[in-house]
């Protein structure tokens, strides 16, 4: 279970508070969606969950399976099963995607006390997973995300998610920049990772993705706070009314 308790976070550099008291619980086995206007703090929440040091948590807590993860480094969190699919994945020139994937998966397996893959073993596993997500072999040989289209980058995120076998998945606008076919493939990939011991947080600006990944709950984030929580029908409602209700001056 993911428990976010009255979480306040500011930008470390200039002290601007972005998250102003977020309380949210995602029980195991559930998928929750977070929707909200641009600039409302959705990505900030995702980054804070993954442990990005640009943000400083000033109060509140994040518990994953009853354990606070706030003091853990990003890689320790990954070891605990936390995975963030980035809204804007980074390009890493000169490092082949396959090498990166192997390093990442083996480092994570090591942290979890699992046996590391040999290079040939891993190539097999990676190729099979890539095939499912429509990631071409040739992409695995290229430098990580360099020259990949927006859609290819998102698929690569989902491929990483599949290979790292996370238990807490945070998808930050994984649907943006994807056409309908790609959304279907990516959603299938994400849906495979649903399970009784897993929790998922799907951040999206549009309702579209939620046709494919059906959420148990929908939360509206605006001005750094959860403004409203409802069932999956809330997403459809928002699609019609937009975020106007929430974009006024902060309370």
């Amino acid at each position, binding site marked *: 279970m993911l428990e976010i308790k009255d979480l306040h976070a500011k930008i470390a550099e200039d002290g601007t508070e972005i998250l102003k008291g977020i309380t949210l619980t995602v029980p195991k086995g559930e998928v929750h969606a977070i929707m909200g206007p641009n600039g409302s703090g959705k990505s900030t929440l995702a980054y804070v969950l993954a442990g*990005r040091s640009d943000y400083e948590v000033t109060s509140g807590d994040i518990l994953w399976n009853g354990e606070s993860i706030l003091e853990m480094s990003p*890689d320790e969190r990954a070891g605990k099963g936390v*995975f963030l699919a980035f809204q804007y994945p980074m390009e890493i020139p*000169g490092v082949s995607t396959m090498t990166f994937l192997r390093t990442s998966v083996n*480092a994570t397996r090591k942290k979890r006390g699992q046996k590391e893959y040999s290079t040939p073993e891993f190539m097999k596993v990676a190729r099979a997973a890539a095939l499912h997500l429509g990631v071409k072999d040739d992409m695995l040989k290229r430098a990580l995300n360099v020259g990949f289209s927006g859609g290819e980058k998102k698929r690569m995120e989902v491929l990483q998610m599949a290979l790292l076998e996370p238990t807490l998945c945070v998808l930050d606008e994984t649907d943006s920049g994807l056409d309908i076919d790609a959304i279907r493939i990516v959603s299938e990939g994400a849906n495979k990772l649903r399970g009784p011991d897993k929790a998922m947080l799907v951040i999206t600006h549009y309702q579209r993705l939620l046709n494919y990944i059906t959420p148990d709950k929908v939360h509206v984030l605006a001005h750094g706070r959860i403004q409203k929580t409802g069932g999956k029908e809330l997403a459809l409602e928002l699609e019609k009314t937009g975020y106007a209700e929430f974009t006024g001056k902060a309370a």
Partner: protein
Amino acid sequence: MTVAIIKTKAEQGIVADFAAHAQRLPGDAATGKTRTEAMAAFARAGLPHRRVEAWKYTDLRVALKAFAPIATGDQAQVSAADVDEALGSLAAIDADRLVFVNGCYRRELSTPKPQVNLFTLGEVLRSGGALPALKTDEAVVSLNGALATDGAVIDIAEGEKLAKPILVIAIAAGASAQLTTLRHAIKLGTGATATVIEAHVTLTGAAASQSNSVLEISAGDAAGLTHVLVGLEGNAATHIETIAATLGARTTLNSFQLTASTGLARNQMFTRFAGEHAKLDISGLMLGRGRDHIDTTLVIDHAVPHCESRELFKAVLDDTARAVFQGKVIVRPDAQKTDGKQMAKALMLSEGCEFDSKPELEIYADDVVCGHGATVAEIDPAMMFYLRSRGIPKEEARVMLIESFVGEALEKIENEKLREVLSEVTRIWLSARQA
């Protein structure tokens, strides 16, 4: 105006050492005279210092406190296994070897190809041949002219395509430091192609040397040379190298220069395009930590039209290491359609390191494309976070990002096997960081 400069201890020492030991250097009386003249030229100029523009960042009068005794040809015990050990990853390069120990050619350690016109300067001098005089205003080249003991003379005949690379190995093997002086020459006839790798290493347990090498490259028309220079002598070593290249029409020279933790290194290369449609692609890595000082100075003379030059150097610096990149491009009035690009990038791993980059474009023709750039960066925290969010621990992520940085330069090496070996050298250097 000439100002009398007081000779440094190093300058006085080398003049005295030469006077005492010159007769032990190889060559006949004529060569002896050439040497004496060269030494006089060096003594007049003295060591280059910061007021000599091209040596602004590498002041040898300050950096070189003393010269080690000049190497005159002692025979240190060195086995083939020792050579492999000193070479480390470089030993995996499949090549014909020419091995020089403390400045002297070692036949028993070398594997020259019989069909290639390969000989050594030492042989030439001992059989009464002349030491070619060098016309230069570079004091370090004059010094080389006075003290050269040996060197590879590689002469690839017209049309010959050398399949196997030649690996020229200079090893420091003495129990105490020596000043070793090699003079190499590579000559390519029309249409000839070859790969020559120069490796400078120190035998395990031996004292690092001071070396002052000169390499002359003269390539005819439509020739192709891949040149690789690797300096791995260690942080107690001083390495000065001057390369002078002349390229004929439609000739290509690819040069890759890797220096990893040489205490004081100055690699200077002067390239002159003598024929049209020739190409120079020179790139390299300067890897420094501790108090290493690594200087790469390139002068490219576009003397004729339609030639292309590419320069890409990358420095990775830690602790208080310093790297210097100076790139001068001269485009002569006739050299229309010159295409020159230059880039120098440094990755700073600590606050105490320093990178000095000085581009100099002297363009006298109007229809040319010339560009240069330099960047200094630290490890990108956003990239770091991305990798760590994928479970990769901090130190491993750091190494990965440094490899990402150096990758762009290593990719310039076309020969896959060679690229692999030099990538490995880089990886070993990176992983030696954790003390």
